[in-house]
Structure formats: structure tokens, C-alpha cells
């Protein structure tokens, strides 16, 4: 298990060639080996969702996967949401609706909700609640997180109309 394997991780469009032990979790490799520390570790057993990333088209807990499982897949993390200085609409909505306090859970919530909005553009308010129940915020800012995601969903619907 301690013999290292060479893998290539594609994070936010950039390839990272790393040598890792097969037992290393994806989140550890994203943070420590690739230096992308925006993805946070809150529980290491899939409960809190702070480590949520988007893998191809799916929001996943990166603490519940091994890095060697994601060779050839596209990883998106919070660092890839903005386009240069232009923030993703959901990042702006989080600021506008005060959807964060300490900010530790925020990257996970952003990736969770961005994936939900992308895969289900007509997502209903109730479905948003259901999705957001996946992650934990200990500053208990849930109401404002819900507001931010709902307003972004509405904005994206308007933009399509």
C-alpha cells in the first residue's frame, strides 16, 4: 500500500502529474500534492460535505475516494469556479445573501450547488432544499445559503427565457 503510483489528475483543466500511495484519498492529493487548498476537510467520513468537488458531471465527497480512482476524469474545485476576475454567479450570490460566515464549508456548498444547477437547470425550490441538506454548516447559515442558491437558479432561468 505504501508503494507509490504515478497518476495524472486533471483539476480545473490543468494536469497534475503526481506519485501517490494508493491509499491516499482524493482530497488529500488535491490539497497536499496539487496545492489546491480551497477544498476543505471537515470530517473525513463523508458526512459534512466540506470536501465536495465536481467529478465529470457529479458532485462527490473527495474524502470518500482514492486519488487513483480518478485518473482520466475531470475534477472541478472551487478554484475553478471564477473566470479570472469574473466570479461565478453563485459566488456573487453567496456574498450578496451573506451565505457564509467562517467560510470553511463554503467551497463544498458552492460545488454541490453549482453541480445541481448545471445538471438540473429547472431545479425547484424544494429540490434545492433537498440537495443542500447534503452538507453541513456549523455557523448555521442555512437560510441564507438557500436564498443564494434559489436566487441564482431563478437568475439562470431568466437568462434562458
Amino acid at each position: 500500500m505504501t508503494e507509490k503510483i504515478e497518476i495524472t489528475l486533471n483539476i480545473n483543466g490543468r494536469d497534475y502529474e503526481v506519485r501517490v500511495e494508493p491509499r491516499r484519498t482524493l482530497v488529500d492529493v488535491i490539497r497536499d500534492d496539487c496545492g489546491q487548498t480551497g477544498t476543505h476537510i471537515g470530517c473525513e467520513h463523508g458526512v459534512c460535505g466540506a470536501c465536495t468537488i465536481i467529478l465529470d458531471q457529479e458532485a462527490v465527497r473527495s474524502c470518500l475516494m482514492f486519488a487513483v480512482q480518478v485518473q482520466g476524469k475531470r475534477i472541478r474545485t472551487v478554484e475553478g469556479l471564477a473566470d479570472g476576475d469574473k466570479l461565478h454567479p453563485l459566488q456573487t450570490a453567496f456574498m450578496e445573501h451573506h451565505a457564509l460566515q467562517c467560510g470553511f464549508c463554503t467551497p463544498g456548498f458552492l460545488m454541490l450547488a453549482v453541480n445541481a444547477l448545471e445538471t438540473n437547470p429547472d431545479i425547484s425550490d424544494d429540490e434545492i432544499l433537498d440537495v443542500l441538506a447534503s452538507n453541513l454548516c456549523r455557523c448555521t447559515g442555512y437560510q441564507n445559503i438557500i436564498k443564494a442558491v434559489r436566487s441564482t437558479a431563478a437568475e439562470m432561468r431568466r437568462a434562458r427565457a
Partner: protein
Amino acid sequence: MTWVGRSIRRLEDPALVRGDGRFTGDLTASRWVRFVRSPVAAGRIARISVPAGSAVFTSVELAAVKPIRPLLHKFNYIPVSQPVLAKDVVRFVGEPIAAVVASTQEDAEDLADLVGAEIEPTPAVVGAREARGAGAACVHAEAPDNVIVDASSKTAGFDAALAGAHRRIAFAARSHRQNALPIEPRAAHAAWDRSTGRVTLTCSTQAPHAMRTVIAELIGMAESDLRVIAPDVGGGFGQKMSLSPEFVVITWLARALRTSVAWIEDRRENLIACFHSRDQHIAVEGGFDADGRLTALSADILANVGAYSCYPTTCGVEPLMAMAEMPGPYDVPEYACVSRAVLTHTCPMAPYRGVSRPVITFAIERLMDKAAAAFGLDPGEIRRRNLIRSFPHTSVTGLLLDQASYIETMDAAVQAIDVAGFRARQAQARAQGRYLGLGLATFCERTGYGTPAFAARGMEVTPGWETVEMTVDPSGSIEARIGASPHGQGLRTTLAQIIADELGTSPDRIKIVHGDTDRTPYGWGTFASRSLVIAGGATLMAARKVRARLTTMAGILLEAAAEDIVLEADAARVVGTDRSIRIESLARAAYHQVHRFKGEIGPGIMESATYDPAGTFSNACHVAVVEVDVET
């Protein structure tokens, strides 16, 4: 329109939504630590066996480090010592026994599994009531009956008032222990500086200066050789204001190994070994007159504080706050209370958001509900008869309630819920076999309290004040350096709003520096609902001094009276004229052309202010409608 009172985007947020926040766990280190922890609640350490050639540190190597020994000078407090790594005995599950050091976190974890800690279990006591019983295991020899805070008070007329009560109603509540559970577990990173011999400890703390003082003291190093940084901190809720023994070990290791050493707590460690709270038994009895008004209140409070006393508040924080604030928003004329802190073989207690407030509020609110039922009164009505109405009010325990809106908030809550409508729905539901209930919770919450309030508890380390230093540098950039240490409260934004109003600028032009003992004045950190009141008050005072300096300088340069200068739109202007000077020009002059002020003003722009208020109370009423599934 002022900046204060306006809802604006937080200055903290752009970095945090981009994933550019910087938390302790983001730092890299050359050595990583894993703690070996006790698997039993009580026992004697017979032997610690270590794999050959591995770097494992125990109380033997750390023999020169003093134990954590917080002090309280009142309430029959018995000091107890906590070694930073267990020495001879263990006293709770999760107590650190050894620190294992390796090149990676994974290697440290592997190595920790190979450390053999042979512990002979001894009888353990885990409940506060059992701990006071005859024959209970003793947690520390200094306290044979396990009681280390034993406080009591009784007003002169209490016995007569209770004896003469029309009706006496009692209620006993038990609060099980809780964990504040910040989403970011604890973390510490200590880096030894080869050139100066100083150590920089970056850690998830709410109180960097207090950490610097105590860690330097325990290790025996000059406080000036230790820099403590609280970077972005992922929530604390009180759990991160107390000293973690692990932080002392990490700092010691950085000095001993002359390198950078880090530890990131995992969630399991946080759950078992980081501070717990609110494990209390509370029994209250109220004497009521014929109209349902309280004439006397008694309380018996038993707080299970675990195996050690936390620094800096001591374990008195829960039982003593419960004793002083038990009457809450109610007019209690006579009061008697016994409140104790009891040691057990469990994880130590530390303050957690509201400290005893949730438990005492539950106890007295249930007492009111029981009284309402006994008197045949509506729960709102019994409260209305007992809530304090005239202010200022000095409570039976000597607390000053300067102003409050107890009746108004309760009326608003009751109106919001439509109690009459609810009663009809409740009756209908009951007929169908469904159980609906309505709960009211009226409470006050102490906020912004300074030195006198903490001194009343007899704390050796008495927090309270905050200092703010404010400078305008030669470029005109305004910086405030604070001793408070926000970790999610948005204090950077709110303080910038205060300063912007005073200095005629906008919040985004102001830098607030916090969480770095090399850069900020000594202060107490962020806890106890204090920062906006106390650090905010000091900020306002410092900003007014800077304002006075700027207007004096502008008056000299613009040949006008200082009183006629207004600060607005980043400039100082003579009121009613178009004569003005930009703040950055004034600032540049303050440093580079000080001769222009003809000796009336010294060089530079730097002011500081300290604020230490008496404190006040906020209040609210919560109302909840619940359905109980009686089948489950």
C-alpha cells in the same frame, strides 16, 4: 447615509468564496504529528513501548513543560494540574499520551498505531452525581470528593419568602454533554526560525494573545520569542478559546526539533478529545404568590466539568454563570443557589456559545410552564406577570439590566404564532390522536461585558478590555489593528463601517488586521458576545482620535478652524467652501512635511484606544410549535 446600519457585502467574502481563505491546515510542514490517546477513562500508565528508531515524545521528554493549572480565587476553587501529555495516569478517553512525529501525516498515523501504551484500567466515574457519591473514584487527589467549585448564595429573606409562598413548584432538568463541533477541526503549525530562534505558532484559536502568554509560560520561553497567528478559523463557538494541550506540544516540538511541525485534528479526535460542554443537572423550585408571581427562586446546579479545568476561564465558567444568571429576564425578589463543578473521568468542559444559557433558560422556562398549568394560566400570561418591566433593574444576583424589551418581544412572538388559532388546532389534533405543543422561551443574553464582570468570578486571568491601534500611513491607507480575533463574525466589515463613517471614507479602503500577535495590540480575542461592543467601541474611540488629528492638520494647512473641517469623500474640506485637501495629501504631509504644522502636530498618524465597558444584556423570545410522534 452612514455605513453603520447598512447591509453591505462583507470584506471577508471574496477570498472565502474563491477558495482563497487561508486556514491552518493549508500550511505545509516538514514534520507531522499524530497523538496517541488514552482508550480508557481512567488508568495507570504501566509502560509506553516505542518502535525502535522512531520519534515519539511522552511526558518524560516534556518533563520541563509546566502543567496547565488555571486559577480561580473564589468559590472554594481547588486548582488541579493537567500535564500536556498524560503523566503516570490517564483521566479521560482521548487524553493525549504521546506525540508521534514523522515526515508525513500518513507515516505519523502508521507509527502511532505501533506505539504500545500499556494502561492498567482503574475505576472510573463519568457522571456528576455519581462522582459526589460515597466511594466514588477520585479524579484528582487534591479534591477527594471531586468537587472543585462549590459556590452558594442566599438572600436574607429567601427562607421566609419560600415558606410563605402560596404555591411551590419544582422542576429538575438534565442537559447531556454537547460538543461545539466547529466545521474546521483544531489544527496547529509551529515553525522554528533558524535566524532568531523564535517560533511562529499558527493555530485555530479564538484568542491568539492568551495562547501566546500561556504557551510561553508553560514552555518557559520569553513571550517575545513566540508569535501566534490565528489565520482564517473555521468556527469556534467557544471550543477554540480554551488552551489545547496539543498546541503546547506542537510549539515545544518545533523548538526541540528546530523545524516546522504540524498537527491537524481529525473529526474523531475532535469528538472525543476536544472540549465538551453543558453536562449539567439543574433543579429549581419557585415560590409563587396567589397571583402566580414569583416570590422566591432556588436552584441547585451540578456541572460535570470533566477531568481538568480549562484555561483561561477555569471550569467555574459554567456553574458560576448558571448561578449568577439563573433568574434571567424574571423579577426574582429572593434567591438561593448552590452551584458546583464536579470532576469526572470525561473530556474536560470548556465554554460553548451561551455557556450555561441554554440549560438555565430551559429550566426556568419549564418552571414557568409548570406554574402556568398549576395556576390555570396561559403560558404567556404567567410570563407576563413575572417578566421585569421597569429599567434599569438590578437583579437579585447584582447584575444590572440596563434596558430590555421582554414583554414586547414575547407579545410579538405570541402574535406571530396566533395562539388562539393554535389552541383550536391543538384541540382538533388531539381529538385525532395527534399531539401538538407550543413552547415559549424568553431569555436575556449577556453581551459586551468587560473586566468587572470577569473579576466578579475571581478569575486569575481576567479578560475584558480591548485595544485598537489605528494608523494612516504616508500613502493615506487606513489600518486598524485589533486584539479581537474574529472567525466568521464579519468583524472586519463592521469595524470598517464604523471607521468609514468617522473618517469620511468607504469600508473597502480600510484594512483591519487581526489574529497576529506580532502585528496587533494585546487583546482577549473573540468570545462571549463581546467583539462588536468592545473592539467596536475601542475602534470608534480610536477613529475619533484620528479624525481629530486629521481635522487639526487640515485646519492648519487650509488656514481654518479645526471645528470647521469636515471629512467626506476621502478629503478634509472647510465646511461651506470648496477648499479641501485629500486625506492622502494630509497623510503624506504628516510624515514628510511635518514642519508645515509648526510644532502643533508631531509626525505620523497613529492613535490607539482601549474600551472596557460594564456590559449589557440583549433579549429575545422564541416560540416553537411542535408535533410529537407518540409512537416513537
